[in-house]
């Protein structure tokens, strides 16, 4: 089950096949499950809201991110734009390549980590807290510059390859009082109902997403944490090695799938 092999099975949200295709998908399916974005399981209304930038409420954060990008974060500290210029050009497709290994530190970073690295190194400011409005706004703004582009994380370097393996182990390891692994829901039962919702393949492409349950935008970390709490496991820390490794594994699994952030999720 290498990422590249899985990626051939990925099916885009615009594929014509209906939901009925999943009726036959169950724990006994011998073929790998096609990876489907959770967008497929939205109602027509919500899917239209996600795709229409004039209706998608995630854009409330994207707009704030655009402001933060231009503004000096503190007196005489450079704005993001001071170094990176117009994000439309300089950041196009960048979020689709994250998590990535940082050239300076050799450590794996997700988009949030990269933003905070800039803040500490170049803006001399304290890092932003996960799921703070500011970090969400900047993350959503950057994701927006990759919207529609295929996920294209690099997994060849030793550090990245090791992280993908760590993530893969986490994905298939049972955890929590309910003793479930990610794979039991998000590989074996995709398209089936889990209480009020439909199980997706666990593609990370929609995050940060506007989730109706949250009544707001939330990070991929917050979503992963929700699954861990759901199986009554102790959630990992935001920004920890295992968290970033799992994000990289999920992205490697979704290679080629278009970035949908800010997506609408239930």
């Amino acid at each position, binding site marked *: 089950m290498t990422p590249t092999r899985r990626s051939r099975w990925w099916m885009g949200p615009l594929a014509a096949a209906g939901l009925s295709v999943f009726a036959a998908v169950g724990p006994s399916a011998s073929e790998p499950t096609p990876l489907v974005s959770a967008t497929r399981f939205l109602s027509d209304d919500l899917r239209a809201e996600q795709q229409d930038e*004039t*209706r998608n*409420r995630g*854009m*409330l954060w994207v*707009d*704030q991110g655009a402001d933060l990008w231009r503004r000096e974060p503190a007196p005489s500290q450079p704005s993001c734009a001071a170094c990176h210029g117009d994000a439309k050009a300089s950041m196009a497709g960048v979020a689709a390549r994250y998590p990535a290994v940082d050239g300076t530190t050799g450590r794996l970073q997700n988009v949030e980590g990269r933003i905070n690295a800039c803040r500490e190194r170049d803006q001399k400011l304290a890092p932003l807290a996960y799921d703070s409005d500011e970090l969400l706004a900047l993350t959503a703004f950057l994701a927006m510059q990759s919207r529609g582009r295929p996920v294209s994380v690099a997994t060849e370097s030793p550090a990245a390859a090791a992280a993908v393996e760590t993530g893969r182990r986490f994905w298939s390891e049972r955890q929590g009082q309910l003793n479930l692994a990610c794979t039991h829901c998000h590989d074996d039962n995709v398209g089936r109902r889990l209480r009020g919702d439909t199980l997706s393949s666990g593609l990370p492409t929609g995050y940060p997403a506007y989730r*109706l349950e949250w*009544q*707001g935008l939330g990070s991929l970390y917050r979503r992963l944490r929700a699954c861990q709490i759901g199986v009554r496991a102790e959630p990992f820390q935001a920004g920890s090695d295992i968290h970033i490794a799992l994000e990289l594994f999920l992205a490697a699994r979704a290679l080629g799938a278009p970035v949908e952030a800010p997506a609408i999720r239930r």
Partner: protein
Amino acid sequence: MRPRRIVTPEKAKAGDVVEIRAAILHPMVTGHGSGGPNSVPRDIVHTLIVTYDGAEIFRAEMFPGIAANPQLTFTTVATKTGDVVFRWVEDSGAFTTETRRLTVEG
């Protein structure tokens, strides 16, 4: 003044029906917290008033049943070039306002 997102056409022809969307970032706290009535005081945006060229064209009253970050869509008829002014009023009395120019040709 809260973050908001307004979508209006910049230009229209006289007589056109134009669609306007207005969303505001607000938690819309219902006041029905788990600690009993008003344990967390109600804090919602209760009114959106929109005027066009000085005359009120749209007014919405909102209640605690409305979800966070309310987005409202309505239409109006373009008559002449003028300002469309949006004003959201909150329980605290605070308000958020924004003006968009609608240019009408012909």
